[in-house]
């Protein structure tokens, strides 16, 4: 069964890149432009993985992660966040909020695919 990935990012270029990359790797990609939309989409369909940016308007990534973890259906669903450089403090916060892993921007397409595979398998 094709795995569905929710990509939440306010940058259209990042969303596009993530969609193309992951679609090319055989995943189905759902997009959202901020945390609020992301949460709505996540409620709509329970996805296999959430990939979210941290820095977003309306609801930021940390908020989204916390909200998702409150949902029973999202217990155990991996959440990956995108972060710039190694902002250790932010990373810790995100992990404490319930994130599974992270990808440091800027990233190569292959890096994204390998992290996704690592977390949800092919």
């Amino acid at each position: 069964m094709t795995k569905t990935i929710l990509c939440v990012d306010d940058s259209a270029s990042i969303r596009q890149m993530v969609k193309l990359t992951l679609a090319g790797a055989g995943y189905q990609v759902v997009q959202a432009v901020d945390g609020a939309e992301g949460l709505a989409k996540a409620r709509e369909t329970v996805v296999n993985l959430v990939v979210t940016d941290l820095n977003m308007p309306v609801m930021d990534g940390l908020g989204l992660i916390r909200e998702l973890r409150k949902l029973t259906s999202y217990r155990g669903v991996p959440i990956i966040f995108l972060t710039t450089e190694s902002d250790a403090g932010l990373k810790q916060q995100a992990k404490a909020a319930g994130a599974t892993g992270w990808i440091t921007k800027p990233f190569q397409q292959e890096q994204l695919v390998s992290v996704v595979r690592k977390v949800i398998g092919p």
Partner: protein
Amino acid sequence: MSASDPAATFRQEAQELLEVLEQALLDLEHAPGDTDLVDSAFRALHTIKGSGAMFGFDAVAGFTHHVETAFDLVRKGKVDASPGLIAVALSAKDRMRLLIEHPETTDTAAGDEILLALKLIIEGAPAPPPAAEPPSTTWRIHFRLAENAMAMGTNPLLLLDELRSLGTATVTALTDAIPKLDRLVPTDCHIGWDVILSTSKPRSAIEDVFLFVIDEAELTITAIDTAGEADRLGEILIDRGTVRPEVVASALASQLPLGTLLVQAGDLNQDKLAAALAEQEHVRAGARAAKAADSIRVPAERLDELMDRVGELMIAQSRLTQVAAGSSDVQVKAVAEEIERLAVELRDTTMGVRTLPIGSLFGRFRRLVHDLAQELGKQIELTTVGEETELDKTMIERLNDPLIHLIRNAIDHGLELPDARSAASKPVAGHITLSARHAGAEVLVSIADDGSGLDRARIQARAEEQGLLSPGAKLSDGELFQILFQPGFSTAREVTSLSGGHQPVRPRRRHGRGQARHRGPARQDRRRQRAGQRHHGHAAPAADAGDHRRAAGAGRRRPLCAAAVRRRGMRRTLGRGGCAFAGPQFPQRARRSRAVPAAARTVPLGGAGRPLPESGDRVVWRAPGRAGRRPGDRQPPDRHQIAVETTQRHGNVLRRDHPGRRRGGPDPRYRRAGRFRPGARAPAAGRELKERSMTTWNGGHSLEVLTLALQGEIFALEVTHVREILDLVPITEVPNSQRFLNGLINVRGKVVPLADLRLKFGMEPTPPTIDTRIVVVEVEVDGDPVTVGLRADKVFEITEVAAASLEETPRIGMRWRSEFIRCIGKRGSEFIVVLDIGRIFSRADPRETAVSIDHSSPQLTAA
């Protein structure tokens, strides 16, 4: 090969890989879908490329890359292993060989042509070259995730999968922390894991697996030393910190298995034990795999040296055995027996090291057949039989050229063109069978084709034309076909580039103690090459004295004595003062003088047992005991005392093959590899005798001889007969019926008749000079062992008449009594007549005199 020259190592390795490649390609031709063959070809190419680049063979690497790419596509199923591709790959293989052997080759046109052809066939994109694997390390990985890890989206199964993807992993789950059901939170992670992972990847790759969980998880990664034996369980447990050393020590005091004990004692739970046991098994499995692939290259000279040492050891050991036999010290006897056992095992192991299956040789010919068939427009199938037959490596190499020659001949002259074959209602495809099998003590290699066969009339006509036969001579098939091996002889209407006569086969087969024979006048053209397998083919030296019974014990008497003489620097000119042979160096010889006739029986085999048309094997039943020398002993034989003796009916060569080895002496099978020991001829029993006079002499081996002079002629005696050499001693004259026996002498208290060979050979008697010597020989005359003194004008030296220079006694045009001559050896420009002493003294000899040597014999000078 030398460690200091990696390029040479590469060359050698590449040669082997190219052979593997060729083999795979030729097999692929018949089984295009076989993925194993494709893999094998690919691997060979890959390694050649990789090592080539490493050792500076850039041209090789560059060229091979393209071929490898092609086979990668075949491997992936994108391109078929079509005959076209195989043909191109074969020529590519030749190109690689050229580039490897002559790295200076700059002409790239031929290579480009091949690559173009290759490209046309595959029309595919090049694949990225896989990287070489660095050495593997074994890690012990212990991890326990945070309890909420699964809730946070971490899937431990994926982590384990990722670990497995790094190498060989043994995973053990640690379930001891799982709480009782009422307190179990299903989304929490209660299980820990121990993973023993052998991987070539670095430690960081393992850490990367745990990248997202490393902060919260309990994780230890330790490298395990797998170089030595797998650790014992206790050591592993202590090493892992699972159990304290003193707990292990106290547990070990009891007899129960350690793991069970520790679990019972409550110091260890079942999971941790299982994890530790899994680690042990993992490491052991790795060690086993490493052991299976473990082989080293050793220069052939080292092996020769080893063989020499073992030979000397066997001699020293037999001396020890003899000393022990005469000793009353039980401990000495016990040690001697132990050393004997070890020495025998060492010898067998050593000899085993040098043998290779002959299939490695046969494999080379498939390409030859393939190419020649295409060149000549013939269809040929090659069948090989008995590829697993083992032969000494040196022997296999020596067989190469003669076999190539014979196969070429069979293809060129033997097999007909498809049209001719259809006309003769034969299958269109000609058939060549190359087979090897053990025949008694030898390995019989034969090449047979189903071509038109030998044309008897043509051969005879041609031989008469060339003056090799007198017109109208009637010869048996065997004798007539022997002519094919004469230098320059060919019946082919024109000698093609492929094949001339069979003469090239001859020197080789001589060297390899071989016989070449043609069989079958028509229908089948069979050519045979016989290779005495050295370690099975110790020629029994006493055999030419004419008695099977003596031959039965012969191996004990003379394992390596002549070789030992040379190695110990005892080779010398035996002039003034003489030199006694009897001595501690030759315990076998000393024993021989005490030998009573052996109680061995020779039973011709063939009717009831197995048919032995080729080898003329005999089974010898020997009474038990030490070499079966007690005639009255009637115990049934056991396996140590049954010997298969091979008496070559044509070659008159007696060889021995012991299925079980007797104790108490050097094994007669033992021969030093790399050199050929004297071959002794078969017993002078009636049938063989008759055939011997028909057949030419076949002393086609090197012979250790003592040279002496009689009236300016050099003669030689086999050293195996020589007991000692004396200065002239007082002679007691006695009337004797045989004129050449001119008296008796006293040799160490024993009365020995003295013979003057001058008289026997019809030369003038001369008064003794300062050089006159008496050679005391021990021979068998008409079945009785006899010690005789021979008067010689001079005695020179012990020398070896090399295999290649031994000539058969010429039959045509000779007027001398060939019965007295063992063979004629050539040393430098001199001819040496090796005498057959047993025959000289035989009373059965009807004629009393005379050998006259025809010096003008053209055959002799032509040799």
